[in-house]
């Protein structure tokens, strides 16, 4: 197993393996549980420029094959992040990707500029699934022009690799992916959570304080796999697959349809050591199947027919 080549490149960023946490489902509180040096990257929770309180509780609920969350990006602001959060990760040699959320295109650029000054930050993930409050309140990532704008403005102010984290709540993920590529994105994260809702039929209240939330977990994996496949068809940018990865098998599936790396979110809530467990499983699979370099798997789904892309 020692000669396995697990390293992947996300633009200019080299990751020692393709397994990293998803933003919002990871923190230094996990330090005693797993060795951060074995992660492909460290991805702390999205931050906002100013401190923010977050949404009403309950903020999570269980659904069939997953969960809904609506945390509301509770954040202590970018200054606190730079001063108090980032230093926690200094002792690890794993690249850190900062996830940022903002209310406007300008704010995205401002934040990227501030974050870029930190040498510990190896890349920036743009959470364009958050709502554009200066616009109609819809997520940036639901509009190709806005997505383009966010990425472009951020690229203008930073040299760090930029990952656009797409929202899956769109008619054409390909269109948004291409807009981000045109804006200069170095990589794409496919994708954030799907907007969802659940109601307690006895109290007749939404199970989430904020009424709507994002669904994550295995229930959404087939939708995300489809989107990775679709995005891979239109771009050569590195793709980070995200959504419903619970096991190493899920990672292989995402790589086969075109992802170069994956993020693991909800799985860590169910199995707190999911990240290292998945990496171990992947290594065993590679050894057993003679896969020497993990990159060999990327996009290797075997499409026999000239299929129609409809249902």
């Amino acid at each position: 197993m020692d000669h396995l080549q697990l390293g992947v490149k996300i633009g200019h960023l080299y990751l020692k393996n393709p397994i990293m946490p998803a933003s919002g489902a990871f923190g230094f509180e996990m330090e005693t549980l797993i060795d951060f040096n074995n992660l492909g990257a460290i991805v702390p929770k999205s931050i906002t420029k100013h401190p923010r309180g977050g949404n009403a509780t309950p903020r999570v609920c269980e659904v069939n094959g997953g969960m809904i969350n609506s945390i509301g990006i509770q954040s202590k602001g970018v200054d606190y992040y730079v001063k108090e959060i980032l230093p926690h990760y200094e002792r690890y040699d794993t690249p850190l990707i900062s996830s940022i959320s903002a209310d406007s295109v300008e704010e995205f650029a401002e934040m990227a500029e501030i974050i870029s000054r930190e040498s510990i930050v190896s890349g920036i993930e743009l959470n364009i699934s958050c709502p554009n409050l200066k616009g109609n309140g819809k997520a940036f990532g639901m509009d190709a022009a806005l997505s383009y704008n966010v990425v472009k403005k951020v690229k203008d102010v930073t040299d760090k690799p930029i990952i656009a984290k797409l929202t899956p709540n769109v008619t054409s993920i390909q269109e948004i992916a291409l807009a981000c590529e045109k804006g200069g994105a170095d990589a794409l994260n496919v994708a954030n959570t799907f907007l969802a809702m659940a109601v307690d039929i006895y109290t007749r209240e939404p199970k989430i304080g904020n009424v709507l939330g994002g669904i994550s977990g295995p229930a959404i994996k087939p939708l995300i796999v489809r989107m990775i496949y679709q995005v891979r068809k239109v771009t050569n940018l590195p793709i980070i697959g995200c959504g419903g990865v619970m096991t190493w098998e899920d990672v292989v599936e995402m790589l086969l349809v075109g992802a170069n790396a994956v993020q693991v979110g909800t799985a860590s809530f169910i199995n707190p050591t999911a990240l290292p467990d998945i990496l171990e499983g992947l290594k065993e699979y590679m050894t057993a199947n003679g896969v020497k370099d993990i990159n060999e798997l990327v996009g290797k789904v075997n499409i026999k027919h000239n299929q129609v892309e409809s249902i």
Partner: protein
Amino acid sequence: MKPYDLKIISNVRVSERYWHLKLDARPIADSIRPGQFFNIKCADLAFLRRPFSIYRINKEEKTIEFLYLVKGNGTVHLTEAAPGEYLNIFGPLGNGFELKKEWNTVLLLARGVGIATLAALAQEAAANQVTCIAVLSARTNNDLLSTEMLERLGVEVYKVTEEDGTSDVEAVEKLIENLLKANRIQAAFTCGSKRLSKLLQRMAKMVHLPAQIALEEHMGCAMGVCYACVCDIQENDDTHSVRVCREGPVFDLNKVVLK
């Protein structure tokens, strides 16, 4: 905190709605404190883990016990877990109760399954020769759990129930007033009811009684990373958000903002 596969020693129904679970705790190296909890994978069919307070820690026989209310998907399936099988539990999590050396007499106010959480504390209090006075509230006498266990520990138990018409807030207020008068109570602890917590908070603030509460909130990670389980703490004029799973579940009752 760590995930453990623990062998089930027993899992039995103890009243109409409550079950008692005993696990072989030998694999756990960490020390466990009353008020701390474990996040338990109840079944394959319940996606999220469920948080449960530690009910009893038996250091000699190296077992831990939980007392749980059968409520929904997770706990319904938990009742199906059989002795000999293994249960994946993650913990110990959060911060436990603080039992100060200088306290000789403390009051416990629990409702429903909140009794489970305070029972562990009563156990520790007994070990430290601290006198416990417990007011236990429940819907029915059948729901009044662990009174015998508490009495065996030397706890002075007062039971109030809807069944007996003794559990309304006014009656409980009167009862506590009398207990405060009759005893030199130096601290109070509560769990299991928003109504009673509010009552105790009001009374504790009035008489400057140190008080602690074990809170419940819906959880995602239970390890402080997801911010699902927040509540507000008010100190002087500042209100800030804390995580029940990390800074709690035990908080200073006089500071916590009860919605």
